[in-house]
């Protein structure tokens, strides 16, 4: 086997070069990883030079280095945010004790499970987005896609590092298994539903990065509170990268909206429901955007799991996974006797019911998430409002189109009305993208590869990346 100079190939701040055991484990895992990347990573762009951001250190200056890199040569790294020797566990039964640098024996299984579930989502999205390069609306967007992809790859590394470093043989087996599951594969699917959905087109990709990757942000932030310090520090650094994914989603959809509004204005169309005419102009009508939004929001909500969960309660009580921004919350951080209002179906209506806070942590995290999504939608609406066109995007109700938890398969419409006498499918179908929508969006998916040009359905970015102008050659296709 070819020996790798791990310190230069794999930038890290975990003294990889001097940890023989870890190095051996990684050396065994790395070829499989590359193999996975070659099979399942972005299809057809292995030779292109992409203007990527690479982290080479965790200090503010070291973590955003821009340069042209071929994706297979991307320097996957292992980074832990700077540690604090005084840090103490911030919640649960061990509150106030020093954080753990090694895995506490009694929590070993639970912690491993948390890592595996998190780790499994990272390669999954790469798999889902594999074919999107062929239809990118611009080189700028192509670069953003690839940046998201390599960072997901790096996040997989981060989780694999934790598994291999702290979980011995079990960890190595789990790390191996992460390379063998495949998004959407019936025999060996990814662990969470949303990660087995297709990402068939760029609109879906932007929705995915806005909604589904944001779930990642909430999960990572809750893990960044962990009493297991290596996990807390790893996820804290991942969050800085995850922010870029959110940016791709929010600005991507924002730019779709801008293109639609500008085109409608230019053609003198005021009615957002004049769908046929709008579509003829080659831009995406707002009602279709709303249906895509409905789909991706509801699917992403499922990632938070059932409202009540003893797993979540145990992870919290054990000090392994906190709430979002746990350190900024002012309560006892143990939730003794505390309650939290959860939406429940009761007698044909949806009501908020106070329940023991410890058992409904998933609902709380999901509410924080939904609130964050709502703020993003608010900003899109500002642009629509300014154009004078009468339309506002809205998040559907938490109960709409759910497959997990309290509202699973319940006929609830986007406004939150429980609709009687109709099946789940009938209620939802008119509010989700239909075959015509998908075919139309698909027809727009033509690649635009000239620097500075953008597909008609999406506006140029207001600010490109790294202060580069919009006509910068973000990807050199035939390097």
């Amino acid at each position, binding site marked *: 086997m070819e020996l790798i100079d791990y310190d230069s190939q794999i930038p890290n701040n975990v003294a990889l070069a001097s940890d023989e055991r870890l190095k051996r484990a990684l050396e065994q895992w790395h070829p499989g990883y590359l193999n996975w990347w070659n099979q399942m990573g972005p299809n057809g762009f292995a030779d292109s030079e992409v203007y990527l951001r690479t982290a080479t250190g965790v200090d503010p200056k070291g973590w955003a280095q821009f340069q042209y890199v071929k994706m297979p040569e991307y320097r996957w790294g292992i980074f832990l945010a700077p540690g604090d020797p005084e840090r103490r566990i911030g919640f649960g039964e061990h509150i106030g004790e020093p954080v753990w640098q090694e895995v506490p024996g009694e929590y070993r299984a639970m912690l491993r499970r948390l890592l595996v579930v998190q780790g499994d989502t990272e390669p999954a999205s790469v798999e889902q987005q594999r074919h999107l390069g062929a239809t990118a609306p611009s080189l700028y967007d192509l670069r953003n896609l690839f940046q998201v992809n390599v960072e997901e790859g790096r996040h997989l590394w981060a989780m694999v590092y934790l598994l291999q470093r702290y979980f011995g043989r079990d960890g190595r087996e789990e790390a191996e298994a992460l390379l063998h599951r495949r998004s959407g594969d019936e025999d060996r699917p990814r662990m969470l539903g949303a990660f087995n959905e297709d990402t068939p087109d760029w609109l879906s990709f932007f929705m995915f990065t806005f909604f589904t990757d944001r779930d990642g942000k909430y999960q990572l932030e809750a893990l960044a509170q962990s009493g297991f310090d290596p996990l807390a520090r790893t996820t804290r650094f991942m*969050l800085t990268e995850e*922010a*870029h994914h959110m940016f791709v989603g929010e*600005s991507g959809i924002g730019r779709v909206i801008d293109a639609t509004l500008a085109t409608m204005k230019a053609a003198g169309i005021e009615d957002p429901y004049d769908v046929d005419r709008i579509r003829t102009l080659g831009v995406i009508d707002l009602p279709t955007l709303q249906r895509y939004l409905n789909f991706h929001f509801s699917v992403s909500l499922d990632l938070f799991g059932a409202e009540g969960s003893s797993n979540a309660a145990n992870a919290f009580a054990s000090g392994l996974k906190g709430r979002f921004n746990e350190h900024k919350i002012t309560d006892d951080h143990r939730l003794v006797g505390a309650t939290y209002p959860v939406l429940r179906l009761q007698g044909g209506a949806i009501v908020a019911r106070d329940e023991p806070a410890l058992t409904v942590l998933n609902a709380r995290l999901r509410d924080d998430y939904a609130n964050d999504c709502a*703020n993003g939608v608010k900003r899109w609406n500002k642009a629509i409002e300014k154009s004078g066109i009468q339309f506002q995007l809205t998040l559907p109700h938490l109960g709409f189109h759910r497959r997990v938890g309290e509202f699973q398969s319940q006929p609830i419409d986007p406004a939150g009305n429980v609709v009687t006498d109709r099946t789940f499918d009938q209620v939802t179908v008119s509010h989700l993208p239909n075959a015509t929508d998908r075919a139309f969006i698909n027809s727009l998916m033509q690649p635009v590869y000239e620097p500075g040009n953008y597909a008609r359905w999406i506006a140029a970015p207001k600010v490109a990346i*790294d202060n580069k102008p919009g006509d910068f050659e973000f990807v050199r296709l035939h390097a």
Partner: protein
Amino acid sequence: MITSTGLIRQHLIDPEVCIRCNTCEETCPIGAITHNDDNYVVDPAICASCGDCLGPCPTGAIDSWRIVTTPHSIDDQLGWELLPEDTGEIFESVPEGDDEARALLEVAHQGAPRAVAPKSATVPHLNVATRHSPITATVMGNYRITDPQSESDVHHLVLDLGGHAFPILEGQSVGVLPPSSPDTMRPVLRLYSVSSPRDGERPGHNNLALTVKRVMNNGRGQPGLASNYLCDLVKGDQVALVGPFGDTFLMPTDPASNLIMICTGTGSAPFRAMTEFHRRHLPSGPGKLLLFFGARTRSELPYFGPLMKLDRTLIDIELCLSREDELPVRHVQDGLRERAVEVTELLGHDATHLYLCGVKGMEESVRDVLAESIPDWPAREVQLLQEGRLHIETY
């Protein structure tokens, strides 16, 4: 930091571009960033323009700056949907070149963001050597120029440029790339003012001099990386240089120009270069040189001996010593205040240029003195900047 008078380069966040991801707030080492449900904003009273938040921001929203006389308050910013229209007082376009050097210079010039070069200054060369192709200089000499007993360890370094063309003007700086160490993950770059004039420390020898202060503590209990590397070099060692940098902090070559120079510590480096240029090339010019030089004691004042030997008809030197036993406490602003009438009078002439270089902290007190003695100082400051007559470089 904000100052009460003059121009401020205010750090803002573009609400149209920001996605409210909290990364900047998480990154800022001194808690200058805060937010409400609508916006992320920078507190002008806290932000030190360190630039730490710029790289991690995924959107570029954080890299927004406005030149203002009164900073936009936090409350105002929290309510914004757009950045305010800029009033035309926007930062001049910056030349291409090393991003990090540019960022360092921007911070160093933050006190005088709209400065232009003096009218008669020679046009500088910029970015002759880049990070990808630095030039290698050889150490010809390295001497301590503060008293060995004093706490302040400042070195005079002479570097031979061999056969490389590396043209420098007085007031420009060079970038030094110290060798990477295991705990720095990327090559570090630091800027140093060149303390020799354009024809070199020794004319005809293609060399230059630097004045480097050893940083004992970088704030994290470790010795400063580049300054210790430089101070420890011995004759024959090689150094990687990039640059030159800086296209505004330059001297006028019109022999009639007056130079008022205010400095502390290694801030004297560019003034040594300018003074030496005058001595060599404009010896009989009518222009006056007036230097305010602050240090704690004589023994901590770089180049004390050579400075005292300069002909008083060439340069008028005001030493301002703050910890000399037998003398009253005197900082540069005190010296300046004592000679305010003269300085004001001089500044009334178009031929007078005012330079400030050294620690950031002195900027505000110097401004305060100027504001006391010059009516309508804020407006005058803008005018002086535009005329290429006011230059601030602090670090």
